């Protein structure tokens, strides 16, 4: 039996959604899969288990995960400051947050490479005082990705933090909870799913990031070469099958990781009665 729905337009809007999803996402992605069918399985495995390719995967996913974790931590603090404390210049700080969204990522990469290179302003300082080199090392990739992905975390956490009922904190305090207990047992469980969503977005953005990374990474094979760059390199060498195989693998791994994060998120919300 047909179920009646109060909200009209379900058929049309769903049709639209599927049409666009197909046009923009599914057709290009399935082309990728289709292209890789030209390869036999042994040939495919041969390409992706190449040590240089594996090293690039380690660098790309490793740097993206670390950067997303750091961005989540600092993004949470920034969102916290923006929501919780009134201060002058707040609007200005708020506008700065979104700049990485708008800036061409290549510009960001060049600027970062300039200041973090061994002779650069911050790079020199870090090498002189801590012996740490940022640019042309995997660390440089992490720094670039944090810059790119922090707004995702801030903008995801901010509205949830804004909506958080501070009477819950007061209630916990009145029941004898210390400030640390209030944060750990009341605030964090309510905010954490949004931080995790921010983490997922930051990670997804970081894995695919190309423009900013190539300027600061040094792009040394086996050390600081990222997967997107490797794909471009393969294309430039007319190794289309190899490029496709690597891209497909990247797509699958990303999809799996995002799926796991979303399931984790769902599980956490369910366990705390928010679904």
């Amino acid at each position, binding site marked *: 039996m047909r179920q009646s729905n109060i909200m009209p337009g379900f058929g049309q809007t769903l049709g639209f959604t599927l049409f666009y999803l197909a046009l923009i996402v599914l057709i290009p992605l399935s082309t990728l899969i289709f292209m890789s069918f030209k390869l036999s399985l042994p040939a495919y495995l041969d390409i992706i288990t190449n040590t240089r390719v594996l090293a690039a995967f380690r660098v790309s996913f490793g740097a993206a995960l670390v950067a997303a974790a750091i961005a989540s931590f600092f993004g949470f603090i920034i969102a916290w400051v923006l929501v919780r404390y009134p201060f002058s210049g707040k609007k200005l700080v708020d506008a700065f947050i979104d700049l990485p969204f708008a800036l061409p990522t290549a510009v960001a990469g060049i600027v970062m490479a300039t200041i973090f290179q061994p002779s650069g302003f911050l790079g020199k300082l870090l090498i002189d005082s801590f012996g740490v080199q940022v640019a042309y090392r995997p660390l440089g990739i992490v720094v670039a990705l944090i810059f790119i992905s922090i707004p995702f975390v801030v903008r995801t956490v901010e509205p949830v933090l804004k909506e958080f009922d501070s009477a819950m904190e*007061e209630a916990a*305090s*009145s029941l004898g909870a210390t400030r640390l207990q209030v944060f750990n047992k009341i605030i964090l469980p309510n905010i954490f799913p949004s931080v995790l969503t921010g983490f997922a977005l930051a990670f997804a953005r970081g894995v695919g990031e190309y423009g900013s990374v190539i300027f600061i990474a040094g792009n040394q094979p086996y050390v600081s070469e990222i997967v997107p760059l490797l794909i471009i390199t393969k294309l430039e060498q007319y190794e289309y099958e190899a490029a496709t195989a690597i891209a497909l693998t990247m797509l699958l791994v990303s999809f799996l990781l995002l799926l796991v994060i979303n399931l984790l998120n769902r599980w956490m919300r369910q366990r*705390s009665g*928010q679904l």
Partner: protein
Amino acid sequence: MSILIENISKNFGQFAALNHINLEIPDGELVALLGPSGCGKTTLLRIIAGLESADEGRIFLSGEDKTAQHVSRRGIGFVFQHYALFRHMTVFDNVAFGLRVKDKKERPSEADIAKKVHNLLELVQLDWLHDRFPDQLSGGQRQRIALARALAVEPSVLLLDEPFGALDASVRKDLRQWLRNLHKELHVTSIFVTHDQEEAMEVASQVVVLNKGHIEQQGAPADIYDHPANAFVSKFIGQTNVLNLNEDNVIWLKTAGIAVDDSKGNVAHIRPHDIDVKKADANSDSPVTLKDWQHLGSLIRVELYRPQDNGSGTYLFAEMPNERFKLLKLNKGDRVALHIKHAHWFNS
């Protein structure tokens, strides 16, 4: 535990929310802080709790100065208007929270916590909901859980901020009675904030009337109703007719049976039930007519109109039992004679 509020003041910018409040609440009372919105009653409650700090003055609980102490160390239970239940925890975990955050030395074992929580949930008659989340409960249920949660830590003082404000009328009525009974059982000193004078009169053993940041009157509900200290209290508690003593009203009040004395004040407040209404005799010259009436259940409120010499008129409200109104057999537009039994006098 007794509460002593000494010379408390609080300003929000230019606005003086509380102006040198002094108040003493004896052990075991159930006190209502009553006043219109913006009178400072919630601010006072939050200062007693330690959720807000006073600009001036001190708070003593059982003779101990608690002014500088953090809310978590004051040993109070606080109930919020919008419940403030922890929405990521089950009902059971909500009630257990106060016990679980105690220091290791004082913390009861999980088994003792479970026993205590179930006892409290039985006290509020909601043990069957222990594994639900707050979002799955009705407003009345949530507020009872919030109360159980506050009671779990055995507070010496229970503070309730408009506890029934967000509930619908019938639930509110039930919960009022329930709170009164609970207080009889537990005898914990309690203060609740309300803007509803009926609620204050019905639930509290003592009522404190606040207005514009200061205390207008404090006393037992009956005292405050029968002997309002000033015009504000008289108008705020119950219904009243306000008559300015111009020449016209003076003459008229005398004929209605009230002795007018300038020394007592220049405004007369007359409770609707202090006005006796009867049909005017055919030869009476009473100018008062019956305009309309409203059915309030057991009471009937009649609207009376008295034209004045200058062409304007005064409306008066009187109340009488349903039965009596039927016996009078009055119709709209009938002329009526009034006898006023009692009036309060104030200076304005």
